[in-house]
């Protein structure tokens, strides 16, 4: 048992930080102000990610055959922490690196791999995920968008909602129902859909979490060749379960949280307010939530990379990450309200806008509590 980073990992983290210090422009805080889904940040990611790829910091954990170095998976964690804490200059491309690329490597046809993976490894691809629908949020398996076979094509009709990055994405990783309503999970298939396909309309939804971040996507008689289906018709749910297993621990939000907390404390110290024991205690409490979440995430990753059964480790971690995000956000609201007025460090405002979504994005935290109850605590299902 060893909770310290190896010397190689420490050196790698220093390299990532030096890269960010060198490559992020002076006006990066303004570019990042509206979050990873904004047009400004998406445009920046298309300049930034190729440089990141050239420096060997975009996909070092990927296999060498797909542009990676087959490096330590902890490097992927280090990159994720440093990028998210810096405001995620990879924009939407973090999804390619984390799960879309690896899912295509595992389940894609040769043609799909050749077509889609190289642009991701080069840092030039923007994807969105077409999962949630107006009637299918946490209950994703109840989705209603249909894909009906028609000769060598499928014709897709339906709508998606709360879709990040949809306005600027070139492709959508889309879930649709190929069998009737009664088929449930077994009737779902995945399609890799160019967003320029006729019949796709995207409308932005104003939101609390930054402009241009979430959208509605309407699909009307969208014709997609059968070769754009990922896996077989009945495999969609298994593929998405595999893909989301990579994502269940969620983003390394604890890293931004602890840094935002540090920025809050620095502001409070400058004004003499950190000498108050109550403020210190609440700061310590928020820090303890962040560090506990960090360790639960690391434990889940450690188990996964050792090939141990996943159990509910990732679900425990995700719940802890959400609690940590909110502990920091609430500390700021209670003791540094000027942070929400943009009168303090920009990280504080950015953190608040990202914290409010942490228990909702990528599936409600309550679903993870269900999984902890059943898989970790061995509690019975309702009868």
């Amino acid at each position, binding site marked *: 048992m060893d*909770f310290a980073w190896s010397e190689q990992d420490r050196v790698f983290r220093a390299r990532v930080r030096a890269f960010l210090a060198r490559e992020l422009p002076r006006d990066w805080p303004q570019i990042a102000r509206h979050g990873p889904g904004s047009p400004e940040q998406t445009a920046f990611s298309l300049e930034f990610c190729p440089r990141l790829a050239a420096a060997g910091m975009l996909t070092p954990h990927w296999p060498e055959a797909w542009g990676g170095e087959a490096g330590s998976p902890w490097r992927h964690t280090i990159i994720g922490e440093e990028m998210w804490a810096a405001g995620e200059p990879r924009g939407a491309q973090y999804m390619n690196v984390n799960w879309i690329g690896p899912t295509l490597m595992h389940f894609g046809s040769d043609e799909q791999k050749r077509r889609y993976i190289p642009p991701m490894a080069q840092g030039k691809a923007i994807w969105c995920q077409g999962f949630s629908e107006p009637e299918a949020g946490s209950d994703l398996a109840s989705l209603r968008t249909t894909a009906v076979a028609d000769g060598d094509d499928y014709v897709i009709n339906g709508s998606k909602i709360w879709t990040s990055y949809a306005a600027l994405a070139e492709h959508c990783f889309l879930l649709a129902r190929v069998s009737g309503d009664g088929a449930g999970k077994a009737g779902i298939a995945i399609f890799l859909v160019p967003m320029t396909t006729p019949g796709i309309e995207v409308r932005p939804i104003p939101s609390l979490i930054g402009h241009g971040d979430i959208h509605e996507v309407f699909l009307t008689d969208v014709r997609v060749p059968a070769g754009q289906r990922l896996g077989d018709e009945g495999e969609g749910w298994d593929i998405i379960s595999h893909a989301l297993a990579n994502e269940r621990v969620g983003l390394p939000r604890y890293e931004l949280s602890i840094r935002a907390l540090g920025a809050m404390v620095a502001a409070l*110290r400058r004004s003499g307010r950190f000498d108050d024991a109550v403020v*210190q205690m609440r700061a*310590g409490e928020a820090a303890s939530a962040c560090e506990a*979440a960090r360790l639960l995430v*690391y434990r889940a990753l450690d188990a996964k990379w050792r090939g141990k059964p996943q159990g509910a480790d990732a679900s425990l971690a995700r719940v802890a990450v959400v609690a940590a995000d909110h502990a920091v956000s609430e500390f700021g609201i209670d003791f540094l309200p000027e942070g929400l007025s943009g009168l303090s460090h920009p990280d504080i405002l950015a953190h608040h806008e990202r914290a409010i979504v942490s228990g909702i994005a990528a599936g409600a935290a309550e679903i993870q509590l269900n999984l*902890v*109850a059943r898989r970790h*605590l061995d509690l019975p299902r*309702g009868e």
Partner: protein
Amino acid sequence: MNFALDEDQALFLDALEPIATAPGTDFVTGTDWGRFDWSETLDRDLEQNGYLDVAAEPSLGCLAAVAMVYRLAQRPVTAEYGASALLRPFLPDALPRPLAICAGDGGAIRFLPQARAIVRLNPEAVHWAPLDAAAVEPVESLFAYPMGRLRADPAWQALDCDATGAATRWRLALAAELAGTLRGGLDAVLDHVRNRRQFGRPLGSFQGVQHRLATASVGIEGAHWLVMKAAQSLDPGEAALALGRCQSISAPVCYDLHQFMGAMGLTLEHPLHRWTYRARALRSAMGGAAGNLALAARLRWGGA
């Protein structure tokens, strides 16, 4: 970064298990309905088999000692293993044990009726004094520990050791014992809600019960790993953070444990109080959650 036990640690914890679960370590109701079980058997077995010296062994260290305390605290009986396993091996003299620790927390002191020595932790210095039965007055309390107070100030002798290091190790012992105590209580309640049927179904099948116990589990596991990490680093700030975390989650966890055990948990016929009233005793130690979390914040960021 490696969360798996190494071979030595795994062998050590495997060997501990028969002692932790030996006859005499299960819950028994006393004829006088006492609120704690002091296990002479457990205390003796741990000492005689060298388990309390493990922190000083290079291949095992404080990490194994903390893992041991966490495991033992899950049992319904109690013995004095925290201070003896984490603090005593680093004190310059081989003090007699069981140990009682006086750290300016006020009130009655745990294990004083059994203790043969008391250690006083101050921010600047560490002292100890031998004890005999005449020096101690047992105190009846709600806490599920034997408690007592000194009849008079003993003959304190200075110990030549680092006071900050001693406080750090004591915080680790308290944190490991509190995290293990909460885990023991949670396991007892989980067993109950899996089997207790109301409204025609197990209590544990209700989502209102599941989510709160799942939340408790997230809190306990996160706190446990904070303690383990601090046991490796021996960093004073990490130890304060870990103890503060254990103490701050203790109140809501204990509330839920009693809620879901219902009236059974209010009786002395059920052991739940053994864990929840040990947790109540540990909540205020070394400044409690407020003091430890504030200390962790000051050590991390500075401040008066």
